[in-house]
């Protein structure tokens, strides 16, 4: 047993860091902040050129064959640099599922365009009445000859305004238990009957409501078997749940420490104590993320470990962004660019943004259900 990173991972870390320093410019950050679109095509394509957006995939499929460990390094560095990464991560959640469950034609026609950085995919799962319980989705897909006609509405279809396809969860059967009547589709966003409306959020990030009115797609747009959409969703969810925000917390700690030194406030016991606690939780959060990656690397399914990493890191982020605002005082709430603002407004931003980390990609309650049932073997309520 040892905790040393591999030479390969560390040399890769240096490379990623250099790359991000060059590509995640202040201008990129400003544009992300202004538009709320946490995606930058320039950065995305530069990463694609390096085969980094699907780096975990085998080389023959356009990846680099990296293990979860190197992927974890990449994630950590993206967070440390404050890089926009939603476009990439949503796209890869869908793409992994398509790689796994899609038809040969879908793999041939969609995946190369994803890997080259040409297109994005988005996730159309949540609905007004189906969030955590996404399997209760009502958006209807009905067969009509050789094609399908889709009607319904999705909430929070983030990146739909940049994406070429929605990876859509639909109901195809109402006569069976809810998990057994679902079917997945890849719906092109230029299909007639598809519309979207922007939704603005507390974290500044833009998402969308998407509407489907008699959207007609061929049967070849279906991903996986009819009524077996939940099997496909499970693959996608296992990727989605694997996010750890430990490195984001570490970034806040570093910026908080820099502020405390520069202002001399590190001399105050309550400031020192808060920073030490935040640094400790950041260490734990990153270790849990690394552990989950390591479990994945050793070939086991890391669902419980991934849930632990997501739960702990998101809750710690919420806790400490609040604490760090408290120690800094009202100056922490000044917007970037205001005279007297602190750390480019990072703290007020983190305070707003961190809240959603405990909600999306499986809320804390969903993670606790997974940990208590699958991890501890406690009975369902």
């Amino acid at each position: 047993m040892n905790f040393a990173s591999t030479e390969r991972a560390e040399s890769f870390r240096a490379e990623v860091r250099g790359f991000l320093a060059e590509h995640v410019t202040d201008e990129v950050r400003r544009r992300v902040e202004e538009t709320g679109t946490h995606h930058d095509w320039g950065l995305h394509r530069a990463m694609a050129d390096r085969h980094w957006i699907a780096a975990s995939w085998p080389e023959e499929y356009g990846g680099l064959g990296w293990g979860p460990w190197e992927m974890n390094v990449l994630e950590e560095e993206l967070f440390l640099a404050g890089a926009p990464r939603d476009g990439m991560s949503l796209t890869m959640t869908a793409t992994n599922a398509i790689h796994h469950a899609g038809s040969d034609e879908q793999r041939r026609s969609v995946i190369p365009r994803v890997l080259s950085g040409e297109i994005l995919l988005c996730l159309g799962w949540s609905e007004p009445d189906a969030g955590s319980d996404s399997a209760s989705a009502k958006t209807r897909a009905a067969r009509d000859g050789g094609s399908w006609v889709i009607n319904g509405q999705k909430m929070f279809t983030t990146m739909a305004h940049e994406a070429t396809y929605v990876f859509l969860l639909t109901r195809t059967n109402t006569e069976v238990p809810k998990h057994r009547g679902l079917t997945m589709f890849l719906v092109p966003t230029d299909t007639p009957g598809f519309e979207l409306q922007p939704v603005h959020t507390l974290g500044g990030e833009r998402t969308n409501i998407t509407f489907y009115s008699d959207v007609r797609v061929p049967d070849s747009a279906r991903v996986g078997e009819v009524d077996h959409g939940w099997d496909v969703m499970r693959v996608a969810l296992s990727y989605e749940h694997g996010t750890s925000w430990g490195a984001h917390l570490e970034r806040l700690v570093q910026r908080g420490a820099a502020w405390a030194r520069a202002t001399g406030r590190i001399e105050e016991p309550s400031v020192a104590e808060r920073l030490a606690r935040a640094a400790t939780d950041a260490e734990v959060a990153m270790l849990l993320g690394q552990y989950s990656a390591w479990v994945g690397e050793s070939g086991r399914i890391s669902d419980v470990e991934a849930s632990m990493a997501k739960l702990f890191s998101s809750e710690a982020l919420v806790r400490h962004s609040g604490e760090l605002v408290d120690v800094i005082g009202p100056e922490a709430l000044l917007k970037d660019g205001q005279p007297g603002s602190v750390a480019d407004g990072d703290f007020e931003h983190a305070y707003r943004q961190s809240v959603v980390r405990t909600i999306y990609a499986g809320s804390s309650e969903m993670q606790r259900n997974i940990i208590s049932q699958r991890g501890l073997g406690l009975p369902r309520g």
Partner: protein
Amino acid sequence: MELTLTSDQEALVDAFAGFLAKESPPQAVRAAEPLGFDARLWSKAVEMGVATMALPDGGAALLDLALLAELVGRHLAPIPFVEAAVAGRVLGEQRQLATIALRPAVDGVARLVPAAAVATAVIALDGNELVVVEGRPLPLAANMASAPLADCDLHAGERTVLATGAEAVARHARALDEWRALAASVLYGIAASALDIAVAYAKQREQFGKPIGAFQSIAHRLADDATAVQGLQLLSRKAAWALDDDPTEGGRLAAMAYLWGGEVANKVAGDSLHYHGGYGFMLEYDIQLHFRRAKLWSVAMGDPRAAYTRLGYQLFSGAA
């Protein structure tokens, strides 16, 4: 990063776990109260080599000792494994049962030294001298955790100065880093076993027609606890590993692991006790054993909050 134990480590853990399961069941833990020491158990453990392997030339890495300390915590074993290991590494020998004072002496007295009520040698930082004082075990300072604490007058026994000045301070500091890392492992062990007890009870105890573990308010807090316990295992092991292999990180990680370990162990033991309802409050149930010990381990060096503050200065201001 390689998080599986080596086959040597696994063999070590299996042997010691088997030994403690047999020799340190809850009855033995109770029987050893209020002194908190089972001389027969300790001599068997010494025979197994757990004391000598801790020595600098004993062939064990600190991480190996951490794995054993986890088991001491898990089984609440009434033996001064951590104290003897840390003291042995300062002295370079295990001629006798030695321990170390965690807080600097005041007016020549080291107060509430762990294991001093059973040890025959106490190491302490006395002013600018690192000393070892040999003598008979000191009178027990009876305490909530049933731990063999005692006050030690550093001029009352046979006193040897091991080091002075900066060297004394540095050797003491290093020993405390090692103690923190191993204490974090003990705290992990206590927390992990408290969690196991809680989970088993929550599956078996029924109210309102179902196991109480089916109530989400219980299941969810246990999920948080399980997450914290997993994080503590990683952090305490990493701290022990780093003290040997990554010296720039070792002290920082040991401090974090110890402080965080204290919080986790107290919380998990407290939750576990709580989810036993009134039964958890009965002396007959084991969880109160964990509850009492977790608190002593976490407060042994003084106010954890003040320690977090010192850690903050140390990490972020450059000043001590």
